[in-house]
């Protein structure tokens, strides 16, 4: 089996979005823990933030193949 430096590069590039996604959900959990009624309001916001942070990882995924 042969490896590719692209995979290493993508692995490194995914660290940033991974931390971002972790922070977003940490904030969401914090918010819900402090005020459980706010769950319905926070959930779409958290998912939206997750999607935007994930976009960076997705762009890196494309560069992996180029």
């Amino acid at each position, binding site marked *: 089996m042969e490896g590719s430096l692209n995979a290493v590069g993508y692995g490194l590039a995914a660290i940033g979005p991974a931390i971002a996604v972790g922070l977003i959900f940490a904030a969401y959990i914090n918010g819900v823990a402090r005020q459980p009624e706010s769950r*319905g309001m926070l959930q779409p916001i958290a998912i939206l933030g997750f999607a935007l942070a994930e976009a960076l990882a*997705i762009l890196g995924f*494309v560069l992996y193949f180029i």
Partner: protein
Amino acid sequence: MSPHVLAGEAFEAPGTADFWQPLVGNGAWAITRPMVVVALSVVLIGVVMMRLARRMELVPGRAQFAGEGVYDLVRNAVAIDFIGAKKFRPYLPLLLTLFLMVLVNNLAGAIPFIQFPSFSRIGFAIALTLVVFVTYHAIGIRRKGLGGYFAGLMPPGVPALLVPLVYALELLTYFITRPLTLALRLFANMFAGHTVLLVFSLGAEYMLLHGANPLIRVASVGSFAMAIVMTFFEILIQFLQAYIFVLLTAYYIADALADEH
């Protein structure tokens, strides 16, 4: 794992080539496996939803309850939350259709014997994204006029010096970043997820059949187990991606409908 560990023919890692699966013919006009999956999903969604809508009862049965659950999710958690209770109605059919289309096609990746998420071929993801792209621009242009729409892309309160830079960034967001990430997110998630399943199941098959010694053959059980665990994880992601796709669509539509940027 190096070929020294596993004697015999070397293990070939699954890659992009595994996703090109023509059933009839070959080349540009081939009928491929994802095309069949998409066609099946359209028939399935159409028949099921029409039958559900035709026989609505005051006390819902099991099927109607499930159908209403999906409708409720898109209507309340996506459309009303993002577009607002006053304006969401015209866009609900589009959102519900997109959600069902993405959901059923993603779940096809986990259904035995079908086992191919159609959106792991980027063409299908691009087609859906084009619909969304045209829709949210059309809504914005119809509401504000062509000039008004392009003027409205500019957020208020930006210093005059920065206006060209910010405006260029806004154009980039609306015309390139948004459609690009919308299509790529769906595609990349389905592609990567399916590749992970391929790695574990093909790896297990290779270890079991071509393993050099009994220990490696026994270890293939772990790989099979991982393939099953990852399949359940994939189902979660497949659902989440369908949700995110409509959520972002609703967000873009709401943005086009908003008066202020």
